[in-house]
C-alpha cells in the first residue's frame, strides 16, 4: 500500500486491512443485532460512522487539553454526546430507520470501534488524519454491516431494500420460501461466521496482511 501517503493509508486501512468487523471483530453487538435488512445495516453503519468521525475529530482537537487521567471519561462523554445527537436527528428526520435500529443507536456509545479509535488513534494523531481515519473505519464498518445485512436479507427474507411492502424488492418471486434461519439472531452468527471464513480465504489469496 502507499506508505508514502499517510492519508490514503489511513483511509484504506480502516476499510480493508483493519476492517473493524471482518478483521478485528469489534463492535459485534450491532453487527449481529440490526443486520436483518440491508437498509437497517447500512443505516446503523452510517450512524456509527457519523459518530466515529465526529468524535475522532473532536478528540483529536482536544487531545492536548485533556489530561491523560481523565481521558476515558472525556472520550465517553464526547461519544455519548454525538450518539445522542444522532439519535435525536434520526428520530426527527428518519423515523423509520430510528424505529428499526431501536436500542442499538444508544448502544453505539459502548461500541468498542469508536472508543478504540479514539484511544488508539485520535488521541495521538493530528486532526486531519483522525478525520480520514474516522471516515475509513466508518466506511469499513458500514461496508461490513451492509454485506452481512445483504446476505441475511437475501437468504432470510428473499428481498432487498426491505422491510415493508413499499420498498422491498422480491428477488425470487412470491413462491420463494426464504431460509428463516438467516433472518433470526442465531442465523446472524452463522452468517457472520461464514463471511469471516470467506474473507479470510480472500485475504489469504491476495496476501493482504
Amino acid at each position, binding site marked *: 500500500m502507499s506508505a508514502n501517503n499517510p492519508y490514503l493509508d489511513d483511509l484504506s486501512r480502516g476499510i480493508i486491512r483493519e476492517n473493524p468487523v471482518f478483521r478485528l471483530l469489534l463492535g459485534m453487538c450491532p453487527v449481529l443485532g440490526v443486520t436483518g435488512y440491508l437498509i437497517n445495516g447500512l443505516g446503523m453503519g452510517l450512524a456509527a460512522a457519523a459518530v466515529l468521525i465526529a468524535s475522532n475529530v473532536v478528540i483529536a482537537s482536544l487531545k492536548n487539553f485533556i489530561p491523560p487521567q481523565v481521558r476515558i471519561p472525556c472520550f465517553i462523554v464526547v461519544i455519548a454526546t454525538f450518539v445522542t445527537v444522532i439519535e435525536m436527528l434520526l428520530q426527527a428526520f428518519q423515523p423509520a430507520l430510528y424505529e428499526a435500529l431501536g436500542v442499538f443507536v444508544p448502544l453505539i456509545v459502548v461500541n468498542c470501534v469508536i472508543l478504540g479509535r479514539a484511544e488508539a488513534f485520535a488521541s495521538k494523531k493530528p486532526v486531519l488524519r483522525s478525520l480520514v481515519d474516522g471516515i475509513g473505519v466508518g466506511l469499513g464498518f458500514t461496508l461490513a454491516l451492509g454485506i452481512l445485512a445483504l446476505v441475511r436479507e437475501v437468504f432470510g427474507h428473499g428481498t432487498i431494500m426491505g422491510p415493508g411492502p413499499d420498498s422491498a424488492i422480491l428477488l425470487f418471486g412470491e413462491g420463494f*420460501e426464504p*431460509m*428463516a*434461519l*438467516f433472518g433470526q439472531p442465531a*442465523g446472524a452468527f*452463522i452468517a457472520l*461466521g*461464514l463471511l469471516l471464513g470467506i474473507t479470510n480465504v480472500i485475504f489469504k489469496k491476495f496476501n493482504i496482511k
Partner: protein
Amino acid sequence: MVINGKLIVSSSPHIKSVESIQSVMTDVLIALFPAALMAVLLFGYRALLTIIIGVFSAMLAEAIWRRKRDLFSDGSAAVTGLLLALILPAAVPWWVVVIGSFSAIIIGKQVFGGIGYNIFNPALVGRAILVVSWGGHMAGDIWPSPQPFAFGYDAAIVTGATVLASRELAVTFSLPEMFIGNIPGSLGETSALALLIGGIWLVYKGHIDYRIPGGFIGTVFILGLLFGGGFYANNLMTGLFHVVAGGVMIGAIYMATDFVSTPVTPVGRLIFGIGCGVITMLIRLWGTLPEGVTFGILLMNAVTPIIDNFTIPRQFGGVNKSA
C-alpha cells in the same frame, strides 16, 4: 544376502486391523438399512426419494467441499445424509432435503475441520437448521401417517399428530404397533424394531458402546415410569411408551453414539447417555416441545469435552490420586 528395494522402518505395531473409517461407516450404513427399509415400507415412495436425495446430496456436498471426485470417500457423508433423511418427515420437499444435507456437511462438519473435528452431530445440526428455517415443512406436531406396503401413496396427504404431542392419540396405538413403527413420525424413527436390529449389529461389531444407548434408553424408561404422567395403562407401559415413541431409539442408537461428538471414556459415555435421556425427558414432560431428543443430544454434544476431562479412567493398577 540381497534385499531388494527399501525396507520400511516405522514404529510398532507392524500389523494393523483391516478396519478403517470406511469399513466402520459401511457397517453403520448396513445397520441403518432395516430402518431405511421400514421407512420405505411404511411411508412409500416419498420415503425412498427423501433417502436417496439425502444420501446423494450429502456425499455431493462433501465431495465438492473437499474437491475430491471420490463420491463415497470414507463413507461418513453417506451416513450423515442417511441419518438426516431418516429424521425428516416423509413429505418434505426435495430442496429442503438438499439444503439440509449441505448444511449438515458444511456447517455441521466441514467448517469445524472435517471428519473428526465437528463438535455437534452433523445430521442433527442439519435438522436443527431446517427446523428453524422451514418449520412448516418440518412438520412439528403433525407428521405424515404411515400406510404400510402402499408404495405409491403420497405421504404428504395423510397426517396425524405424533403420539408424543397428543395423549389422546397416544392411547389409540398399542405398544407393539409403536414398536413395529406403524405410527406417525419421521421416516426412520418410528420403527423401534428395525432400529434395534441395527443397533444390536453395531454393538456386535464393536462400533458403538452399549453404555450410551443403554444409559439413554434406560434413563428415558425410568423417568417415563416415574414421571410419565401415567396416562397409559400403567406406569411400566408409560415408561415403555416413552422409549418406543418419538426419536429416542434412533437418537440413542445412531445419533448419541456418533463417534466424534461423544465422550471416549467408558464412564463418560454412560454419563453422556444418561444426560441425553434426562434432557429429553425434561423437555418432553415439562418443556413446551413434544420431543426433546434433538436438543438432548446437541446439548450433551456441547459438554462432551468437559465430560471427557472429568472421567479420565484410572490406569490398570492405579490408585486414587487424592488418596
